[in-house]
């Protein structure tokens, strides 16, 4: 009885895309090894049965050498072999390297369907594979697919039921590689292709001289584009909607309000100069939607568009190579740049993806650095929106402070923590031109996730804050912390509320600073503090899950210490 289908294969062969095609469950897939860090399950209808499909983390071999491989192997041995079918996903452009796992799967007696994925790309690169020949040698069904376009997926589903265990003698790795050499000679034909532009570019991006030049260009262009697209959306779409359509509507609505009591305070908030001010009124219908849709969402769209593009092209692993030297000094290796970049979107997926790092030590350093020194996108959007009006210098200043913190913290942690961090050993994917449809789908998924996760929290949060403010329930907390906040950071006692709110939503917290009438220096310090102090509650939970309680406490102590030191120093050294 078939109960489970496992998708197994080397890292970065498109397992997640095949998974999405089979189950209809949308998962994020990117062009670098280690995208899938969480175990994903879905269902596939075969006739009138429903079969569970599991997307396993990438593995090169069934003799595990890494954590991802351990997970894959232990899952494969969880159930009796007659209840499962393994769909072994291969990268057709690199058949040779992929076949080791295939032979091991067959050798271990798993009923296997071989899925030669990325067949379009293989054809493009002049790789021809004799499917019937391979089927005969491996004694299991072989299907050629292109998960990006959906080609071959139907045939793949049809073949699942035909998979039976094949009989094979067991070999050592050396013997397997020799056998693979023979198989390749039999079934693969390579057309000779000249070095084309793509390969030249791939080479140039990892050469010391051209590589750094390209990296600088890519990073600069990425920043420019994120701002350009983000501001474009704000100026052309969201601001006109809010100011020309929504505000007149709200004003008409609020005119009917006779007395400005509790409900007015809750929904509309305070009128600034007799008018609704989206940045300062702090109402559930005014500031809350404006923060999320008018200030943060445009940057969510632009940031994830550029990030998804870089991910799918396959640039990030190359950036990792170039930054390896630098990150080594911080006790990390180059690949840590991927969790850090994801962290700039939202700290939660950033910290989750520290699983691509092998050692506990590295994961601790990376998670702590991300939660302290990497501001999430909603926070950045608000900092740009509020501090930006005082000049780009202040926005740049926040980033400079954060970067210095990452640098110093990494150096110190690397010195103090026992042990050492393992080195880099990673496969570099080829550059690929992502199909627009796939890019759009991924962007849509990320935006939808943001809207579903952020908007309810923000609405409920602002509602809650307004109730507390209306009944002056914050006074107790502000009273306790006021001396500390005023003494060390030079902030007024009302800022305590914002700093506390930061634990729930960073963007709302920055928004709360707006009506306080802070000086630019105070604004700068408060914004920086929000970035480095406690992470938001979602990040906190993920940190706990990933690091365990002891390391979480350690990490939190570091956060508190860093906030106090940095906030205090800024207060002393910034003159105005």
């Amino acid at each position: 009885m078939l109960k489970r289908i496992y998708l197994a294969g080397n890292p970065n062969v498109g397992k997640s895309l095949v998974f999405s095609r089979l189950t209809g469950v949308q998962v994020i897939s990117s062009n670098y090894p280690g995208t899938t860090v969480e175990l994903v399950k879905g269902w596939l209808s075969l006739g009138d049965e429903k079969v569970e499909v599991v997307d396993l983390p990438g593995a090169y071999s069934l003799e595990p050498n890494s954590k991802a491989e351990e997970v894959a192997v232990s899952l494969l041995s969880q159930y009796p072999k007659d209840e499962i079918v393994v769909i072994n996903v291969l990268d057709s452009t690199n058949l040779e390297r992929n076949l080791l796992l295939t032979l091991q799967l067959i050798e271990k007696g798993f009923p296997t369907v071989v899925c030669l994925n990325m067949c379009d790309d293989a054809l493009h690169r002049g790789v021809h594979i004799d499917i019937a020949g391979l089927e005969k040698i491996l004694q299991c069904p072989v299907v050629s697919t292109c998960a990006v376009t959906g080609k071959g997926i139907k045939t793949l589903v049809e073949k699942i039921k035909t998979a039976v265990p094949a009989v094979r003698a067991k070999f050592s790795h050396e013997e397997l590689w020799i056998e693979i050499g023979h198989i390749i000679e039999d079934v693969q034909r390579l057309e000779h292709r000249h070095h084309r532009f793509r390969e030249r570019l791939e080479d140039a991006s990892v050469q010391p001289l051209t590589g750094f030049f390209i990296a600088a260009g890519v990073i600069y262009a990425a920043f420019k584009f994120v701002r350009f697209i983000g501001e474009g959306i704000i100026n052309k779409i969201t601001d006109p909607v809010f100011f020309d359509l929504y505000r007149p509507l709200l004003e008409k609505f609020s005119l009917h309000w006779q007395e400005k009591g509790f409900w007015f305070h809750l929904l509309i908030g305070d009128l600034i100069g007799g008018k609704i001010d989206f940045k300062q009124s702090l109402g559930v219908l005014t500031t809350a939607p404006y923060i999320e849709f008018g200030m943060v969402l445009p940057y969510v769209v632009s940031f994830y568009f550029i990030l998804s593009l870089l991910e799918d092209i396959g640039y990030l692993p190359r950036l990792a190579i170039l930054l390896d030297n630098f990150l080594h000094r911080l006790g990390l290796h180059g690949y840590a740049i991927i969790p850090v970049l994801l962290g700039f979107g939202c700290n939660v997926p950033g910290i989750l993806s520290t699983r691509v790092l092998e050692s506990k030590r590295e994961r601790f350093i990376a998670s702590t650095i991300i939660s302290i020194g990497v501001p999430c996108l909603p926070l950045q959007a608000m900092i740009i929106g509020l501090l930006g009006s005082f000049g780009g210098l202040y926005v740049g200043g926040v980033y400079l402070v954060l970067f210095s913190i990452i640098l110093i913290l990494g150096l110190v942690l690397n010195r103090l923590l026992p042990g050492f961090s393992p080195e880099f050993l990673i496969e570099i994917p080829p550059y690929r031109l992502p199909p627009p449809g796939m890019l759009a789908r991924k962007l849509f998924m990320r935006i939808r996730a943001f809207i579903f996760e952020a908007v309810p929290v923000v609405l409920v949060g602002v509602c809650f804050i307004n109730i507390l403010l209306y009944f002056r329930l914050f006074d107790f907390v502000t009273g306790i912390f006021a001396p500390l906040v005023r003494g060390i950071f030079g902030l007024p006692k009302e800022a305590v509320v914002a700093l506390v709110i930061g634990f729930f939503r960073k963007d709302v917290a920055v928004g709360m600073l707006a009506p306080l009438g802070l000086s630019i220096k105070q604004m700068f310090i408060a914004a920086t503090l929000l970035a480095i102090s406690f992470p938001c509650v979602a990040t906190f939970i993920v940190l706990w899950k990933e690091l365990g309680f002891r390391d979480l406490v350690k990490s939190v102590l570091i956060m508190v210490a860093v906030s106090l030191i940095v906030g205090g120093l800024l207060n002393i050294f910034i003159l105005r």
Partner: protein
Amino acid sequence: MKKISLIHLKAGHKGKVAEITGGSNLAARLMSMGLYKGKEVTKISHIGLKGPVVVKSGRTILALGHGPAAKIILEVVC
């Protein structure tokens, strides 16, 4: 024929893996990724003095930290 470590090979040059010294864990990992004794590799680049090394073996491009790269001994024609 002479034997040198991967870090001493010049970028753009080829060599055949003669030996992978050090822990068996590294050898096993490289083996599963298709880099084993007798395999021909081309060094693509080397970042900085103590930086990572990029090699091509077959159709696979691998990036290795300086430490692991030093442990791969190659046979080169000179």
